């Protein structure tokens, strides 16, 4: 199934340029490496101490002209390589002049979410039309991630608290790896998916029908097995954001099971515990309030009011944490709106309810 590759596929306008530069650098490097290895082996044989016949008219003092000449030559060569690479880099980093297709991207621990101009959203998958300049507006909700598509020879760190743009133009339809390239915690190696480069017509159809694509929520498994095209795909259609909270969605992500046990598993896999302690042994203060016994407890808010931590409050805290901030804590909890299905949310809340109290 996997043909052995020595060289990656290229599927963007820049890929070819980067490859040519890379191969040129490799060639120069090989020349130097060859010269050095060759020189060592040749001299080691020729001037081996047992080889008495070799001429050894010792030269003790080197000439500065030799060293300066070497420095000069290497400087010229280096500046050449630098200039080539620099120009290409500027090319990659400069915003294109023409119109672009804009896609918003949000990275959070171990999930990529993309939102198209139409409002279509997808998780761990990105659909783009071929031959069109795409601008990705990227941000992170927690730590630093890095958007990496090897076939595009494109990588960009995605930082929390700021927007970062990247541009690319896909040239070959197909399905390519999307990786997270900056270490971001437990499931860093699972934080990936696929970029689908489609013919413009297909792309338009895909947008209209209700996007099909990414099949799983990052942490929950199956990341590198390429889904067969006709595998049941998940609809995260346009306008999901507008769906009233609590309204049942047509295609749930996972089979229905709202037990607290499943909530506990989610709590672990979504790494809630990175902020919320469920024990009191940690060495350092937690970043978020302890959730043991939170259900049914009055909670003092930042604005001085007090609310009862009932079920709607817990739901809101998870979906829209900034709506009501607990006193004494920074507003850093990310929203899980785009990550959790309703069932998963219910499971989480059930789990929280089950935590003592």
């Amino acid at each position, binding site marked *: 199934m*996997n043909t052995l*590759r*020595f*060289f*990656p596929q290229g599927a963007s306008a820049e890929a070819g*340029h*980067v490859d040519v530069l*890379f191969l040129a650098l490799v060639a120069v*490097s090989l020349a130097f490496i060859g010269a*050095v290895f060759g*020189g060592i082996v040749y*001299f080691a044989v020729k*001037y*081996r*101490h*047992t080889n*008495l016949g070799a001429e*050894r008219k*010792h*030269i*003790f003092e080197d000439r500065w002209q030799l*060293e300066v000449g*070497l420095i000069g030559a290497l400087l010229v060569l*280096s*500046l050449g390589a*630098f200039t080539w*690479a620099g120009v290409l*880099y500027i*090319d*990659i*980093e400069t915003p294109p002049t023409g119109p672009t297709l804009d896609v918003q991207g949000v990275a959070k*621990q171990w999930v990529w979410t993309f939102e198209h101009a139409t409002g279509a959203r997808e998780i761990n998958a990105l659909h783009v039309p071929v031959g069109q300049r795409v601008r990705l507006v990227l941000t992170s909700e*927690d*730590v630093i991630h*890095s958007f*990496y598509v*090897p*076939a595009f*020879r*494109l*990588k960009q760190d995605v*930082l*929390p608290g700021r927007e970062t743009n990247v541009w690319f133009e896909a040239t070959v339809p197909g399905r390519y*790896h999307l990786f*997270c*390239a900056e*270490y*971001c*915690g*437990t499931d*860093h*190696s*699972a934080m990936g998916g696929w970029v689908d480069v489609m013919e413009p017509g297909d792309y338009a159809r895909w947008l209209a029908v209700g996007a099909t694509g990414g099949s799983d929520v990052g942490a929950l498994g199956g990341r*590198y097995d390429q889904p067969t095209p006709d595998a049941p795909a998940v609809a995260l259609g346009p306008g999901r954001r507008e769906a009233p909270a609590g309204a049942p969605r047509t295609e749930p992500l996972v089979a229905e099971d709202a037990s607290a046990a499943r909530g506990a598993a989610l709590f672990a896999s979504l790494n809630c*515990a990175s902020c919320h302690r469920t024990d009191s042994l*940690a*060495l*350092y203060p937690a*970043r978020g309030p302890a959730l043991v016994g939170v259900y049914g407890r009055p909670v003092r808010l930042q604005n001085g009011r007090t609310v009862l931590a009932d079920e709607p409050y817990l739901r809101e805290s998870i979906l829209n944490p900034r709506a009501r901030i607990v006193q004494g804590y*920074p507003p850093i909890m990310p929203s899980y709106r785009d990550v959790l299905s309703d069932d998963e949310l219910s499971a989480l809340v059930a789990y929280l309810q089950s935590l003592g109290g």
Partner: protein
Amino acid sequence: MTTTAPSPFAPPPEATRTTYLNAGTGLRSWLLTTDHKRIAVLYTLAITAFFGLGGVMAFLMRLELLTPPSDLFTIDTYNRLFSAHGIVMVWFFLIPSIPTTLGNFLLPLMIGTRDLAFPRLNLLSFYIFLVGGLFTLAAVSFGGIDTGWTFYTPYSTSFSQTRVFLVVMGIFVMGFSSILTGLNFVVTTHTLRAPGMTWNRLPLFVWSLYATSLIQILATPVLTLTLVLLGMERWFGVGIFDPALGGDPILFEHLFWFYSHPAVYIMILPGLGVISELITCFSRKHIFGYNWIAGSSLAIAAFGFLVWGHHMFVSGQSVYAGLVFSVLSFVVAIPSAIKVFNWIATLYMGRIYLRTPMLYAFAFIGLFVIGGMTGLIVASLAVDVHVHDTYFVVAHFHYIMVGGMLTAYLGGLHFWWPKITGKLYPEGWGIAAAILIFVGFNLTFLPQFIMGYLGMPRRYGAYAPEFQVYHVLSTAGSTVLGVAYLLPLGYLLWSLKYGPDAGPNPWNATGLEWTTPSPPPPDNFDEAPVVRDMPYAYHLEHRQFMDPDEAGALAAKKASRSED
């Protein structure tokens, strides 16, 4: 093998001399010693242990990476493994490696003095190092750390649930050891040179230690401060680097790499110095371009401070800064190129002896050039956008750090082993191990270049199946490598008991350290040395032959030639 014919180079039979080894007995005399030679031995034991630890972790990682899913360990365990591997190898093995062992042992001997300028400070450095190391070990054992050796924020400050604080404290403590050692070396080199040991007669190894020390003194405090801020942020939940609280993670990257790029030159310069010594000795020829090699060490130390941003080309740093850091990275490569050129020129018309240390020197040059040239490839902006944080980078730095520095360390250890212990190691085993290490090394890390360019990201405990072939090759290689590293451990220990006596100067080498008996007396020299010659006068007639056997064989050969 060698019939013990009296050799002109063997020491005269003597009543048991007082050496630094037998000058005092008992644990106390070792643990409270201020003798730089004994402290060097203590360091050697400590860093060997740390290397073994880091190596075992590397091997476990390689086993995990045999198959695409994370099946041998959980992904959390894998993350802890590579973090601990990087941290232990960088701070507790490679940075102290040559300076604190060979450097500590040889610096006073080479410049002809009794000890370092501040002997008690030297012992203190060792204990600081040990405390830092044990701290880190404890943290790694109880919970571990999963941030990678780079501690990028806000992951390390706000998200990781592991023992970040303890590990950071360990490295913080170790940093003082590094600074104090550097300070001690600099002051020693300036104030304690023997009469006649002018700067242009200084051994090149001393030059490289001097340059290394400058980096340790000027870069480490920035790491110290950065780790303090990180620890404070983590402990107190204040937002120095966390954007959620107004902090700036890119500032962390700047501060971290301001230290950590120069630190990679802490990790290579001493090795470059060792190689300069080995090449000239086993070519029996004066080193080519002494001034240039000495000067290039200083140039690397200075320019090395100007390129740190090449680790941040895709971090969100400005494009202009990227350009500046990239061009300077090319410039900093030139002093390294000068060294390589002068070494090769030294071989030219030499009289080359392929002894174990020389094999290591050759391996070093080759692997360092591969690592260095790929360093230039990753310094090329547009290419780095693709290969940053892939196995291409992993291969780059293992070529330099393992293929380069570790090889230089082994080469130096073999070269000075007779001086340190007074015993000869078995040459045949030495050559076999050197070759095996070279083969195993390349098998381990060459495939990583290919999969890196294919797009295999680093710090992945689970990966896409198409990369598996290369991972399997790499793991196979690391098995060979692991076995190969055990060989020197075995035969060097063996030689302590069974090795033949070395005599003061088994290589007939130049340099003050060879003028005193092996192992040296506690005060290094029986008579205060005075230097009258140029360094590396291997061209002089009396430096020509390495040992009597060889002299005899050559004479016979010559004779038989002239006959026909």
